[in-house]
């Protein structure tokens, strides 16, 4: 027997659950503004999620997937991206979308059942939310291949959950990215649950990062409740990809503190005790602790921030609630670039049914 290949998977953390550095922080963390921006984005995301859930509870929004407790992942990822990169989120990365310039009202419109929500005014090339789990991973390699063909120094960043790693699409996309050394970074937002199915029932693999080994690309783990670590590890992967060093997979370890969506009741399948324990590790308190320990953040800052987030979110909610539905005929208007004549009759019929 001879050894044909060997591999290791590393894990990175900078701030532990108590907000204390476990190793010297990366250079960007010396800049207060950078850290504060991460912190603000996480708090805004949490405020936004709370509002969306309450809109749903009061019948003014459809099903919604909160990212409570997972804010560091999308925020850290988006913070590591450049404007010209392309983001391909699943459905729990609103924190990243906001940082990318997607407007809160757009996200609300989407979950409120209005297609306009995916016509982002901001990042025009970013992909809309992807509901069929894992099916956007092949799109990410398509986008990355486009960058490669045009010799653009841009990176596609695709985020999906632990459950998504069981889908062949995700594996196939990583495998293809490996063959062509595409500028794409895959991030597993491992919140340890896929609705009611715990991480351990998705796969016998010790880590999800090692899924990369099958694709011949680097895989690594990061503490997904440590925004600094996510920002750093994903950032390194993105910059490597940008300069032609190929794709990577980053597994961010976090935890879904909320129900799966507003349509879910997690108490049916998981222990409160587990959830309480995980509250001790959540990302916002952790970064706040570090910021205040290092004298970069005080009570007044916090109060101002909370007020600011609340008013931004309220304004977005009002705008959302005031937004009219699309006219029914809108369902024909972007179906094709130009409506085939075979469909004009149906459109007329709908128009008549709508305004009889």
């Amino acid at each position, binding site marked *: 027997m001879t050894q044909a290949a060997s591999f290791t998977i590393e894990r990175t953390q900078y701030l532990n659950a108590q907000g204390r550095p476990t190793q010297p922080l990366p250079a960007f963390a010396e800049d207060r503004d950078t850290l504060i921006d991460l912190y603000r984005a996480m708090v805004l995301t949490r405020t936004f999620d709370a509002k969306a859930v309450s809109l749903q509870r009061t019948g003014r929004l*459809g*099903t919604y997937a909160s990212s409570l407790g997972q804010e560091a992942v999308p925020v850290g990822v988006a913070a590591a991206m450049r404007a010209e990169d392309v983001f391909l989120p699943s459905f729990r990365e609103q924190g990243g979308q906001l940082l990318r310039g997607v407007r809160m009202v757009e996200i609300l419109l*989407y*979950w*409120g*059942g*209005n*297609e306009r929500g995916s016509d982002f005014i901001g990042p025009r090339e970013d992909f809309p*939310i992807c*509901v*069929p*789990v*894992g099916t956007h991973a092949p799109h990410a390699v398509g986008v990355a291949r486009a960058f490669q063909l045009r010799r653009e120094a841009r990176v596609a960043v695709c985020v999906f959950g632990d*459950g*998504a790693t*069981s*889908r*062949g699409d995700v594996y196939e996309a990583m495998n293809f990215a490996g063959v062509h050394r595409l500028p794409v970074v895959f991030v597993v937002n491992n919140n340890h649950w*896929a*609705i*009611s*199915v715990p991480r351990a*029932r*998705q*796969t016998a693999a010790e880590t999800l990062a090692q899924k990369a080994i099958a694709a011949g690309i680097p895989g690594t783990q990061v503490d997904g409740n440590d925004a600094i670590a996510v920002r750093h590890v994903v950032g390194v992967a993105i910059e490597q990809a940008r300069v032609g060093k190929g794709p990577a997979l980053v597994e961010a370890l976090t935890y879904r503190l909320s129900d799966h969506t507003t*349509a*879910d009741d997690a108490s*049916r*399948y998981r222990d409160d005790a587990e959830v309480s324990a995980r509250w001790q590790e959540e990302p916002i308190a952790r970064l706040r602790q570090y910021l205040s320990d290092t004298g970069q953040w005080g009570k007044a800052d916090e109060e101002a921030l909370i007020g600011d987030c609340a008013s931004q979110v309220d304004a977005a909610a009002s705008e959302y609630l005031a937004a009219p*539905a*699309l006219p*029914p005929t*809108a*369902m*024909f208007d972007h*179906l094709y670039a130009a409506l085939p004549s075979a*469909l004009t009759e*149906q459109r007329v019929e*709908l128009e008549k*049914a*709508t305004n009889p």
Partner: protein
Amino acid sequence: MSEITLVEAVRLALARAMEEDDTVLLLGEDIGVDGGVFRATDGLIKRFGADRVMDTPLSESLFTGLAVGLGAQGFRPVVEYQFMGFIYPAIDQIVNHAGRLRNRTRGRLSCPMVIRAPYGGGIRAPEHHSESMEALFAHIPGIRVIIPSSPARAYGLLLAAIRDPDPVVFLEPKRIYRAPKEEIADDGVSAPLDHCFMLREGRDVTLVTWGAMIVEALAAAETLAAEGVEAEVIDVATLKPLDMETILSSVGRTGRCVIVHEAPLSGGVGAEIAAGLADRGLVNLLAPIRRVAGYDTVMPLSRLESSYMPTEERILRTMREVLAYA
């Protein structure tokens, strides 16, 4: 006997089938402790254990192929897709394997599986959660496609589907999952596959439909009845193979037919029914065969879904058109 909902009837039939036959297994996402996103399997894992009620990893293609293997080994897997929008990765296994295993091995191996999926709009669900794509399945050789439209038919047809030795795609109209309720005796009596159900008799016009649309169809029939026009309402129930005999004989009597479905008009199962009438029922037709269907568009998000789906009003208008022919 007690009044139960359609989704409860599904659960009752699953439990009954599992009780009477050890080889019946349930597979899917979140069907175990969580009891399924619509609670169709609620409590079954407690009753039958995790071996028989298995949460799979998140992969529809995988668990469909898994069911093919289990079926070939003599089990009767019942797989659940959370929503029809997630069933497409399974089509490869259905066309290339489930529907042909018996045929290609001349009966040596077979595939007695049931593929369950909630489908259709009307519950303000998110994107990809509201489509009606039953026609894709109704064209695949070697399988059956069944859609129940009431708790009793859900119970009886699901039992029949599970006991059937061939693959069955069983689509559940989720808009009527929780209402109306119906009395059901849990007597293990199955309903006949491959047969339409006559929901209402009438001499003037035939309304052919299935799934949740029977609500609007029956309402339209009642409205017309108040005007003295009697519509015969047929629930197709088995979309493949199609019981054209019942439809032909009804339209033979009424001379008029309106077909109603939620799915996009073009290439929907309504086309096959109309085609069958245009061939074997033409001589009796007094009026054009009209279809009231979803538009040939992407199912819109929830704000517009009610504009997309056939309404009682659209059905009525079409029936009146058809009745207007001399």
